[in-house]
Every structure is written in C-alpha cells, then in structure tokens.
C-alpha cells in the first residue's frame, strides 16, 4: 500500500461502515418512520438526527484512527469519511429513483429519498446529500481537534437537545400537570406537541452550557469539601438524599397522568423482574433464559385463586399473593434440579426450554379445563386494600414500589451474607467453591428459588393489574427483555437495573415508532454495550474496576 493510500485507508473504510449502517437503517424503514417525530419541531426530524449522529460518529472514529498524528490529515480523514457515507446514500438514491427497487427493499420509498435529499429534486438533492455528508465529516473533524472541555461541552449539549426532544412526550405532560401559569408558559416556550421548538433548543443549549461550565469549574472544590466532611455529616447528607428520592417516588404518580402511569407501571414490573434475575444471573452466575416461566406461574396462580371463572376459591389478592410466590419458589426448585450439572450454554438452553414448556402448558387444549387454554382467564379482581379498590395504574404503582423496595432490601442483605458470597464464589469458579465447602446443590437451588419467587411476585401483581391472563403474554421475549435489562443496565448493579428497565421498557412506550424496531434496537444496544461498556450503563463500582482495570496494579495472573 502506498503512503498516500494508507493515509486515507481509515477514512474510507470507516466511512464505508458508516455508510452501510445508515443505509441499513434507512432500508429497514427507521429513518422514514422516525421522520414523523421531530427533535426540533419543523427543523430536525428524529430519523435524520439518527442518520446524522451515525455519520458524525463514524467520521470521528475515522479521525481518531488515522495512522498519522497530523491535524490536517485527521481532519481530512473525517471529511472523507463523511463524504463516503453520503456517497453511499447518494448512489442509493440515484439507483432508487431510476429503478424500482421497492420489490427488494420495502423501505426504499420516495418518502425516504425525499428525506435523504432534503426534499430537493434531481441533481440538486444529490448535491445537498453529499454536502451534508461533507459537513458531518467536517464537524466531526473539528470536534476531534477541539480540546477536552469544549469537545465535551459541545457533545453533551447536543446530546441534551437530542434527549430533551426525544422525551418530549414524557416531559411535556409532567410540566403541564402542575398547571401553574409560569410553568405552562415555559412548557410552551420549549416544546410543541412534536418536539422542541427552535427557541427551546437554543435555550436548552445555553442553559446546559452555563450549568456544565459552572459544575466543571467548581467540581473540584465541591468534591473536596464533601470528602472533608466528617463521617457524621456525610451520612446525614446521604440520608437526606434518600429522603428526597423517596419523596419524589411517592409523589410522582400525581403528576403523571394516565398514560405515563401505565408506562411507569410496566417499567416497575420489569424492574422487579430484573432484580429477581439479578440474583440468578448477577450473583450466582446461572444463565437463566426462561425467566418468564415463573412470571407466568405467579400470574396464573393469582388468576386461578381469585377469579371466579374456572374455580371458585374466591380468595382475594392478598391471600393469593403468598401462595403465588410459594408456587414460584417451588417451580424454581423444580427447574433447578434437572439442570444442576449443566453449565454455560447448556444451562441457558435448558432454562429456555423450561420457559417454553410453561407457555405451552398454559396454552394447551389439554389443560384448558383447568388453565383456560388460549382464551386465558379473565375477571381477575383488582387488589383491595381495606376496602380501597386499587383500580388506577397509580395505585398499582405504589404496590410495585413496595415490592421493589422489598426485593432491593432482600438483595442487599443477601449480598453481604454467607449465601451471597457462596453464590458469587460459585459464579467465579464452581469447582473451587465446592472445595471451600459450598454445597453446590443447595446453593444453586436457593438461587433459582429466590429468583423465581421474585418473578412470581411480579407476575401476581401483573395479573391483578391487567385483570386477565393470556398465554400469549408469557412468551420468550419477556425473558429476553429481562436479560437485556440486566446486561445493559449493569449486571449485579441495582440502580443499573432500574435505569435499564426505564430505558429499555419505558422508551418504546414513549417512542411508539421504536416498538416496531424493538428487537433491532435491543440487539444493536447489546452489541454496543458489549463493545464499549461491558459493565453496563450504571455498573457497580467494582464491576467498573473489573472490565477496565487490566493495566492497573496487577501483574499477569496465571491462567
């Protein structure tokens, strides 16, 4: 390879990758369907924003990977990368306009071409597309050459606009719920029904920059002041923070309105599931892909005991709940026994099978007289607390909150105990753990049972909330969702799981267009997390050390 060639190698290569990525996203239809929602109303549709972000990222990588440390070459590489990306798209548009490739690529519609070319027809559109690519590249190049502070400032400011625009459906109703003149005015200033206003965007950037710079200038002072506080005062401030958090959590449903309360409830159910799976996967290292089985068992037990449809037990929710949890625990033990000797992939497949077994059993005609078959079981009464019917999602929210707090409490207590250490030792090295006196059978069964119990708890609440259970609700995707939450949120990290559930379950509700591409996005997210941040979004402190610490004090370990 000549010297000249090697200079541009990275730019072209990464540009190609970026180009293919944007192309795939366009062809899959994401750009088009996301185009209906705006980040900045009337100015920047979400689909375009995503394409731009990918292009800028690719160009930035191109600059970073340039083999020569000369600024002009790095900048040029970024521009080249951007140009290659838009080149791909331009060729695509030109082909698409001349031939009908719609039979092959459903997403290749005129609407898409319009979006890509900014609505300008013919050669002008193509030129505009290429120019956009060049500008993305140039922007990325400039970003790369900036020093740390301005770069972080710019990136985070733009990220803020993106997120604020994205979450318009979440933020706007909360602001409006206060119904105070001042806040209403602000809401109108920042938001329209479809994203940020241009004014809002600019204001957001300004406010963010001010806050960021202030924090940056003072964070050293604040942190050292905090560290210098006596332990007493620090503990007090931590407790104060927890109290504030508690107040926010308790008061939240009042501001959320019906739709958002629903969303929060779904997130809550998944947080509960995630916390339960955290014990099986995070603490004990047992890869369980059939977690939905216990969720289903919890739901069906509550359904059978409280609904008059099949049996007339006539129990109420609170009586059925402990029975549901116990049934879940027993099921956990039942699953655990045959898989005791399995490890890794085999364990995953076996547990996956168990999940499917439960689904097929509740769906079956054979068991229809007892389990309701494909029609499921309906008429499940809402929980009734001393005469107070828990009908609205806001009420279920409090029930979930109580459940989540209970599970977090149990998780934390177990982690610092003999059984917690036994689980973790088993996860690290099963044979040596056994050689330390840990009874593998009991320890594994206990992990499965505990996880299953929590899952059944979530299922019980789910059944009462929805009022009916259908076999189709309990499919493998629930298991997959929970595993994704745990991994992306951060294995073993309790706040991580809450964040993971909020992002992975909440966002698709807020961004309806996402729902169609859910699995695609999860897959991409998993890969990105594994590559860039394997410890998850909000990892435990120790896990961050785990994954990034190879260069620290440790000499090589013997394999």
């Amino acid at each position, binding site marked *: 390879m000549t010297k000249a060639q090697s200079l541009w190698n990275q730019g072209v290569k990464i540009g190609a990758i970026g180009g293919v990525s944007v192309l795939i996203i366009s062809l899959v239809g994401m750009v088009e369907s996301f185009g209906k929602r705006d980040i900045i109303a009337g100015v920047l549709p979400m689909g375009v924003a995503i394409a731009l972000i990918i292009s800028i990222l690719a160009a930035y990588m191109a600059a970073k990977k340039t083999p020569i440390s000369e600024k002009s070459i790095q900048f040029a590489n970024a521009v080249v990368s951007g140009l290659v990306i838009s080149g791909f798209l331009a060729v695509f548009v030109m082909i698409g306009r001349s031939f009908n490739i719609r039979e092959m690529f459903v997403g290749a519609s005129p609407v898409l071409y319009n979006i890509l070319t900014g609505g300008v027809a013919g050669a002008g559109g193509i030129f505009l597309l290429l120019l956009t690519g060049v500008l993305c590249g140039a922007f990325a190049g400039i970003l790369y050459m900036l020093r740390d502070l301005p770069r972080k400032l710019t990136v985070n400011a733009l990220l803020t606009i993106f997120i604020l625009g994205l979450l318009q459906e979440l933020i706007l109703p909360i602001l409006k719920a206060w119904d105070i003149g001042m806040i209403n005015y602000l809401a109108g200033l920042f938001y329209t029904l479809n994203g940020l206003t241009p004014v809002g965007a600019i204001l957001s950037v300004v406010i963010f920059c001010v806050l960021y710079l202030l924090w940056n200038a003072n964070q050293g002072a604040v942190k050292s002041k905090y560290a210098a506080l006596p332990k007493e005062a620090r503990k007090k401030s931590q407790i104060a923070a927890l109290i504030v958090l508690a107040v926010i959590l308790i008061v939240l449903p009042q501001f959320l309105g019906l739709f958002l309360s629903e969303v929060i409830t779904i997130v809550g159910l998944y947080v509960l599931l995630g916390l339960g799976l955290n014990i099986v996967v995070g603490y004990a290292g047992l890869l369980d892909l059939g977690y939905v089985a216990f969720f289903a068992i919890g739901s069906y037990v509550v359904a059978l005991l409280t609904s008059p449809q099949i049996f007339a037990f006539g129990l109420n929710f609170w009586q059925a709940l402990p029975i549901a949890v116990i049934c879940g625990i027993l099921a956990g033990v039942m699953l655990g026994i045959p898989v005791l000797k399995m490890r890794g992939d085999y364990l995953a497949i076996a547990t996956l099978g168990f999940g499917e077994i439960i689904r097929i059993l509740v769906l079956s005609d054979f068991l229809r007289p007892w389990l309701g078959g494909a029609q499921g079981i309906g008429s499940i009464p809402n929980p009734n607390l001393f005469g107070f019917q828990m009908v609205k999602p806001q009420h279920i929210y409090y029930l979930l909150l109580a459940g989540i707090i209970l599970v977090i409490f149990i998780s934390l207590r177990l982690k610092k*105990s003999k059984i917690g250490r036994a689980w973790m030792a088993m996860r690290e090295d099963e044979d040596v*753990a056994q050689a*330390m006196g840990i009874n*593998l059978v009991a320890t594994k069964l206990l992990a499965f049972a505990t996880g299953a119990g929590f899952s059944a708890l979530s299922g019980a609440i789910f059944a009462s909330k929805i009022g009916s259970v259908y076999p189709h609700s309990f499919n493998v995707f629930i298991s997959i969702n929970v595993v994704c939450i745990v991994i992306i949120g951060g294995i073993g990290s309790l706040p991580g799981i809450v964040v993971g559930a909020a992002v992975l379950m909440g966002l698709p509700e807020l961004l309806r267009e996402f729902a169609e591409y859910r699995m695609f996005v999860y897959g991409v997210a998993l890969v990105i997390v594994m590559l860039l941040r394997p410890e998850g979004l909000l990892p435990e402190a120790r896990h961050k*050390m*785990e994954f990034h610490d190879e260069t620290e004090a*440790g000499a090589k370990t013997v394999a």
Partner: protein
Amino acid sequence: MTKRFGGLVALNALNINVKEKSIHSIIGPNGAGKTTFFNCLTGFYRPEEGEVMFNGQSIVGLSPDRIVHKGISRTYQNIRLFPNLTALENVMVGYHVHLKSGFFGPILGLKKTKMEEEKARQIALDLLKYVNMEGREDTLAKNFPYGEQRRLEMARALASQPKLLLLDEPTAGMNPKETQDMMDFIQHMRGELGITIILIEHQMRVVMNISDIVTVFDYGKMIAEGLPEEIKNNKTVIEAYLGTGEAADSH
C-alpha cells in the same frame, strides 16, 4: 489407591502414609500423578480402587464440600482465586464451613447472624495480616501481583482452619527471596498452627530444607520414600528425576 482415566493409569496402587504435624513433600517429574493424587484426596476425583483414611475415618467418595468439613484444605498449581471478589471476600469464603447462618438470618438481620459475620470478617482480616496483606482487603483478587495472589490463596486455604493442608507447588514462579519467605511461612504454619502439610514441589532447595519426609512419584507409582538426605542420593530417583534441569542443587 488406583486412579484411571480411561486407559491411562494415573495412580497405580499408590500407598502413602502421612504423619500428623509433619511436612511431607511429594516430588516427581511432570505428569507423574502428583496433582491427581491431591485431587483424589480432596474428593475432586474418585479413585477406582483403594482407600483414603483421614484421622481414622474413611473419606474416599466424599464430595469436596464434605471433605473440607473434615479439615482438609488445599491450594492450586495454577492459582484459582475468585478473581472478581475482593481479597477479604475470598478469605471469607474460605471460612464458609464455620458459618451457620442460612437464608433468613441475613434478611431479618438477626443478631446471631450479624455477630457471626463480624467474627468471620475479623478472622479474615487477621489472616490477611498473617500473610502480610493488611490494608489490601478491598482490592479485587485479580488485581494483585503474582506473589500476593499466592499468599492470598494461602490465606483462603487457612480460613477453614484445616488440620491438613495440601500445597500444590507453592513456590512456582517465585524468586529466591520469595521462596525463602514461603519456606519460613510453611514451617511457621506447622510450628505455630500445628497443621500437617503435604507439599508438591519442584524446587529441590525447598524440598531438602523443610521436609520431614519426601515421597517420589513416577508414572503414578511411588518409586522412593525417605528422609531428604536419603532421597537426594537415591539412584532410582536421580535417574528418574533429578538432573533434568530443575534447580537441582540444594545447599
């Protein structure tokens, strides 16, 4: 005992007696069956034929977690710590056999459980101090340099308060000073703690200096046994083993 893996006879009618409170070394070429012997003692393998008697009791066929309860503990040829647990947690796992708390104790915050935890923690800290790793208890095990990992493994093995300690090549990869420290340490364990020690070693200096008895393996059989001085001059042993480029000279 005899141990076979398919057609391979790893241990062939091996017969060994280990005296209480002795330091008993096992040497032999690689592949002679030394680690297999340890694995049979700790219940990881089950010998096809033979018996293992410990303190008058037969322990053959017991699973590894039961054997620890009997008072046998070991370290590994390739260090097998729990890499993502802290030093303190590693040692506390070693103490597992002495903890009685169950599932509900920790959840309910029972006083008995709390006291037991505190005691375990204190014992672990003391053990870390004993192996000169005081103050490092919250570092992840995988972040320690090699020598400290070996010592950590030692602390973990001691946490179960064993009567018999099996050390598998404890000085592998160590420089002369570290080796000397380890030798002193082993003798201290026998002297102060009264632990019987079986040692697999390749460094002749160590073997000659601290062992009470030396057994030599080759091809799964014992080919010689006796005092270090006797072994050093034993013709069969020299033919089979010594002089193969190991640090053969002791002083």
